[in-house]
């Protein structure tokens, strides 16, 4: 069992915990948080694959993918929260 | 020799962190918990930083770590103050 496998399995667990919570929770904010946790799991799998033992240079490509993913996740969270705010405002006017 | 001293410093730092964590869990109210968190954790961080700087031996790294410690000190002091002030405003008497 290598370090890669350990963190990849951890990432899998987080991915599914988050996915399950996204499906089962009621409020939108809780789901956004769960989705972010799920995303973190995916990132863990990618970075675990990129890992090399000390001495060899690390594989930069999955790391760049995850960096892009991180920024996209924050942007998507921001948009989701703005939608949530607008939704609440619309519902309050009914 | 330096490594032994560094090990002692790091262990002492961890001891303070443990104390802070126990305080967080066991103290009765918000103000005492804040007290445990800021005081114990910051001192623990200082000892950890000293140990790591000694272990590495580079002056530049030691200065950077010192800067990190000072920033954490300022940040946690300000946040502890704000949290306590907020709680006081909500008239949760100490």
């Amino acid at each position, binding site marked *: 069992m290598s370090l890669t496998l350990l963190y990849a399995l951890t990432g899998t667990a987080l991915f599914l915990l988050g996915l399950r919570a996204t499906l089962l929770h009621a409020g939108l904010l809780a789901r956004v948080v769960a989705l972010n946790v799920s995303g973190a799991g995916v990132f863990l799998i990618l970075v675990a694959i*990129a890992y090399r033992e000390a001495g060899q240079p690390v594989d*930069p490509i999955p790391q760049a993918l995850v960096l892009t993913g991180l920024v996209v996740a924050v*942007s998507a969270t921001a948009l989701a929260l703005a939608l949530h705010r607008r939704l609440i405002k619309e519902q309050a006017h009914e | 020799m330096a490594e032994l001293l560094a090990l002692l410093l790091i262990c002492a730092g961890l001891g303070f962190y443990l104390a802070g964590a126990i305080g967080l869990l066991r103290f009765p109210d918000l103000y005492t918990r804040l007290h445990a968190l800021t005081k114990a954790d910051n001192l623990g961080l200082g000892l950890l930083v000293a140990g790591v700087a000694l272990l590495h031996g580079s002056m530049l790294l030691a200065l950077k770590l010192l800067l990190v410690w000072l920033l954490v000190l300022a940040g946690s002091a300000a946040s502890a103050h704000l949290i306590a002030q907020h709680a006081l405003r909500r008239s949760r008497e100490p």
Partner: protein
Amino acid sequence: MSGLFTWLPDLLLAAMLVGLGWATVSSTDLRRSVALFIAFGLLLSIAWARLRAPDLALAEAALGAGLSGALLLAALRDEPPAGAVPEGLPRWLRTLVDLLAASLALALAWVLWETLSEPAPARLGEAALSALERSGVSNPVTAVLLNYRAYDTLLELVVVLTAVLGVVTLGRERPGYRRAGPVLYSLVRWLVPLLILAAGYLLWIGAQAPGGAFQAGATLAAASVMLRLSGIDSAGLPNGLAGRLVLRVTLSAGVGLFLLVGLGVMGTGRGFLHYPPAWSGGLILLIETAATLAIAAALALAFRGGRPAGWEADDPDHSPRERRP
């Protein structure tokens, strides 16, 4: 026995990550969920450092834990006063989802076990690392982001711009915060310039060491969040009529400059975004600078929550929200 000792830190870290993730998603109190999520982000940052991904550790601490946490905490204010608790899904559906999730977990774990136990085939990473001298930078992650896969980064900046456009069109910004007391004020007073300095350093050093445009942009956005939390509603963004133009130019400059560079090098007979090797370093720095400012402005606007009060235009909102004086 020594085998277990070398594994212990990683086992602990992995267990803490799963435990904290579980606590985050299963907490019933929303505020506690968000606070746990921020802690989770910081722990994840340590995991990135452990997995030899320092660029990611910087970005996670700034974006994943910091900015995401700040956005979520600000959004907590939007929640309607606790009315009727929405009922969850029926019992059998929950069990079904649990079963599906568990089986998917086992399937993925088995796939990972099988594929990761085999020796790795020739990886793309080796090709990326061997071409590093010609890429114009010496940080491999920056080389991948802004040279080999520059097209992906361009599209990522478009995603950021689209998200901020969505945020701005969906409503007015949130009400501001009260003016800071002496403690917060004195902290912000020297912290914001320090953050700006750190952002500039991260941007510059990204070519050789961990750092780069995204980390620098997130640090600047953090400075903006601090300004807003201390009562300065503009959060460092430019105000007024001219300011609005400056803000819009800054937001589009990330994508705009990238496109200009990409199309510009086509003028010299090369393909889209094929930098001339002698100019790679300079062009990458130029693009990164514009990207930093664009990301910082976008995240700052996202934290404000919507269209700033000065952007009058036609307001589709039914109720004009009074800003607190």
